[in-house]
C-alpha cells in the first residue's frame, strides 16, 4: 500500500522535498512508516523522528486525519493515508 508522508518546517528543509510516498506492507503502523523513512534518509532531523523507546519523538507534531497524535500512539495506516510531520518551530 502507499502512504504519503508530508514534511514541514526544518524536516522539509532537511529532506529537500515537501512530501514522500512510501510503499509499505498492508497493516503497517506509524512507527514502521517512520522506520522506512529513516532507512531511506540518513540525517539528524529524520533520525530524530523516533525517540529512544521506539515511539514517536515527543518534540515532533504528527497529524493523521486532522488530529495531532500523542507520542504513545502507533496507529495502523491505510492505503492513501497522508501522515504530516512538523518539526518544532518557534520563529518570532
Amino acid at each position, binding site marked *: 500500500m502507499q502512504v504519503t508522508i508530508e514534511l*514541514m*518546517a*526544518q524536516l522539509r*528543509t532537511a529532506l529537500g522535498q515537501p512530501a514522500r510516498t512510501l510503499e509499505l506492507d498492508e497493516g503497517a503502523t506509524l512507527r514502521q512508516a517512520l522506520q522506512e523513512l529513516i532507512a531511506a534518509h540518513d540525517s*539528524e*532531523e529524520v533520525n*530524530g523522528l523516533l525517540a529512544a523507546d521506539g515511539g514517536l519523538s*515527543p*518534540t515532533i*507534531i504528527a*497529524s493523521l486525519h*486532522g*488530529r*495531532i497524535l*500523542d*507520542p504513545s500512539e502507533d496507529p495502523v495506516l491505510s492505503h492513501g493515508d497522508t501522515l504530516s510531520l*512538523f*518539526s*518544532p*518551530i*518557534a*520563529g*518570532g
Partner: protein
Amino acid sequence: MMQSERRSLTDHERAVYEWQMWVPDFGEEGQERLKASSVLISRVGGLGSVVAYELAAAGIGKLVLAHAGDIKPSDLNRQLLMTHEGLGTPRIESIGRRLLELNPRLELELIPENLGEANARSLVEHADLVVDCAPLFEERFALNHEIVRQAKPMVECAMYELQCQITTILPGETPCLACIYPEMPAAWKREFPVFGAVSGSVGCMAAMEAIKVLSGFGDPLAGRLLTYDLRDLSFRKLEVRRREDCRVCSQA
C-alpha cells in the same frame, strides 16, 4: 468565554474606532472592553511588532512589551517597528515611539529585557492576555508555565520560512503548549529563514485572536492548531488534545 472590564470611550475614540465598531457582535461594548484590557507581547520582533501595531491601532488600553537589544540591519526585513534611522539604538525605544505615533492614548510598559524564568511571573501579572512571539522554546515554555499558573489566556504563534502555526490557549479549557510538545524541542536554531510578510500574516491573526478573546466575540482557535504554508497557500486546522499527564496543565 472571558470578557474584560469596560471603560467608556471619549468622543474622539468613538471617531477613531467607528469603522471597527460596525463589526457585528463587537460594537461599542467590545471597544470598551479592549480599552480596559492589557496585553503582554514577548518579544516584539518580526511577529510581535505586527501584533503590537495592530493592537495599538485597534485601541487596546495597555501593552506590556519585552524586548532586549539594539536594532541591527538584519531586523529590518520584518521587525516593522524598527527603523533604518534607529540602527544601533535600543529596539524598545523605537517600538515605543512608533506605537505612540499611531496611538498616543496607548499606555505602554516597555521592558528592555527578554522574558525568562526570572521575570515571567511579574510580566504576566501585568497583563490580561499574553501573545507569545518568542524566538526560543525556553521563553515559550516559561510563558506557558506562568499563564497556566495565573489562568490567563495566551495566543501562541510561530513561523519558519513560509510556514506558520497559531493556537489560542485558554487555561482550564484547552491544551497548553506542553500538551503539544511534552518535551522541550532541542533542535530549534535561533536564526531561521523568514520573510516579513510571513511573520506579519500570523501576527495579524494573533492580534485578531487577542481582540476576540478580550472582547468576547467570535470563535478563537481553542484546542485547534492552525497551520498554513504561504508557499502554496494551504491552510488546515488540527485538533489538539489535552494530555492527561501534562507536566504543566494537569496539575494546575
